[in-house]
């Protein structure tokens, strides 16, 4: 029931996101352009053709990217909160965002083409988490989770220093604004080809999280308990971290660094669907997608220039989070 409401909210957000813009589309036009494009390609004439181009080439890829990133970051955050047994954890806890950010700004500094910048972001994000895991295993501490989080903070700080260095070295007129804008997150200029490149990684990460969602929930009880209940906790946690990292690295590569979603949306989902991971994950996916589509639509609409997404999610996210904390102290036991 509540899930269908969330699904309805997503449909509403998608229609709004595709409809609003310098060339507005009514829901009827969206439907015609959608079915027209699906059956015969971009064949219409005049206004019909215009609507099809807007839907299939401009706003469609951007809105779908927003939905995918929102759903992905929310799912990654929800999974990390369970794995690290802490409701205040976000998907960048192991340094993936900082690492991906470093890779991408390095690409900008080197003057690489867009696709190469995205690839570098993706690769550096994955490499950062691999480094954190490798370091954790090498240290072989007793409290493995804590060691892993601390390693994530350390490596993340190192990547942050790398980003600062790149900014210092960058050409202040050309490269620096691009770097700054990119680090604050934006879907401006996302094309169909970018979406098609990033989507498989996000989906590949979502599949194990969704398929294993009951088991993943047991990790919230801690390693020993999960193992006593028949779960190979270490292996499962590795799968979850790999999946969440894949999603986050792909999201950062596509849209830059967008905070708050992965922290806040899981809390909203828990209020709607309760703390059980298998039940809150679908809610988090739907709510994350809707939220991101609405935020991105606002980013296009509220000012003459594009507003970076990171600013909007923080401005919206901070008060929402405070309200959630006030209302939802019962939904988690922090």
């Amino acid at each position: 029931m509540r899930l269908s409401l969330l699904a309805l909210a997503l449909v509403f957000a998608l229609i709004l996101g595709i409809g609003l813009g310098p060339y507005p589309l009514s829901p009827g036009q969206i439907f015609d352009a959608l079915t027209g494009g699906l059956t015969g390609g971009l064949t219409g004439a005049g206004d019909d053709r215009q609507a099809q181009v807007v839907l299939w080439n401009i706003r469609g890829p951007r809105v779908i990217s927003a939905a995918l990133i929102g759903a992905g970051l929310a799912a990654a955050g929800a999974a990390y909160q369970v794995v690290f047994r802490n409701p205040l954890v976000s998907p960048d806890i192991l340094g993936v965002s900082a690492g991906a950010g470093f890779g991408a700004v390095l690409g900008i500094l080197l003057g690489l083409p867009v696709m190469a910048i995205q690839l570098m972001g993706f690769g550096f994000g994955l490499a950062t988490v691999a480094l954190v895991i490798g370091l954790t295993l090498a240290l072989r501490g007793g409290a493995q989770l804590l060691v892993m989080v601390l390693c994530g903070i350390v490596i993340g700080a190192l990547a942050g220093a790398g980003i600062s260095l790149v900014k210092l070295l960058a050409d202040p007129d050309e490269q620096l604004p691009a770097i700054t804008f990119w680090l604050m997150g934006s879907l401006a200029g996302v094309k169909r080809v970018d979406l098609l490149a990033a989507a498989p990684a996000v989906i590949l990460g979502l599949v194990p999280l969704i398929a294993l969602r009951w088991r993943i929930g047991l990790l919230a009880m801690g390693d020993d308990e999960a193992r006593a209940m028949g779960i190979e906790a270490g292996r499962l946690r590795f799968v979850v971290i790999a999946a969440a990292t894949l999603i986050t690295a792909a999201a950062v590569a596509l849209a830059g660094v967008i905070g708050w979603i992965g922290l806040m949306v899981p809390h909203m989902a828990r209020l709607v669907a309760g703390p059980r991971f298998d039940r809150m994950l679908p809610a988090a996916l739907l709510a994350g997608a809707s939220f991101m589509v609405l935020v991105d639509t606002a980013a296009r609409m509220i000012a003459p220039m594009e507003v970076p997404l990171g600013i909007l999610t923080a401005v919206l996210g901070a008060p929402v989070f405070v309200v959630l904390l006030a209302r939802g102290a019962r939904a988690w036991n922090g």
Partner: protein
Amino acid sequence: MERLTATGAPLLSARDLAVGHGARALIRGIGFDLHAGRVLCLLGPNGAGKTTLFRTLLGLIPPVAGKVLLGGADLDGLSRSQIAARLAHVPQALASPFAYTARDIVLMGASVGLGAFARPGRAEEARAMAALDRLGIADLADEDVTRLSGGQRQMVLIARALAQEAQVLVMDEPTASLDFANVKAVEAAILGLAAAGQAVVVSTHDPGQAAMLGDEALLVSRAGVIASGPVSDVMQEAALSRLYGLPVRRIEGPDGRPHFY
């Protein structure tokens, strides 16, 4: 309550077991056979390695030497899910970072053995409710566990282990930090489980409780195993005095039960 007598093969055995971390043994020379319907009480001062022994019995850490047999099979050769099907754990406290309901927690036990991609369905829900019902706490099913009392939480954890439908229960100080009424409720629950044929290993700091609950007792200190065997043989002044390093007196109460002070 009538105790079952030892029949058939033991459900849980330790053979010349040494437990510890890495190669360093905390306790050596542990041996016991636990049959269906019997309760084994584990006593020992803090730091003696009781929790380490429990983690070894659960297969969470490998033995330093010797072996643990679960239903006659070496624990070493069993998978995590095979172990969980035969042996359930009741931890000392419920540590949940999220506000699960009691039903959610017990459902976790009821879902042991489900396939990797499966989610609990009606059968598991029914198993969970039956476990809550059996302990008389069905009314707590939809309560937020973070808001329950310590005693209620302990009962929820016992219900979770019951829902696992394993023949052996391992309980780590289930009455630690509970008030008197809750101690009595948990003790009654343990005796009820044993009467129903469950084999139980339980650790405690209260010799009187061990004498009341246990069929067998195992006393371990930092010096190693002090005594092991039937409760009436083990729970004597000399052994308990050695165990705790201070003179322990035993008297028979008016009900014929031993008391210690």
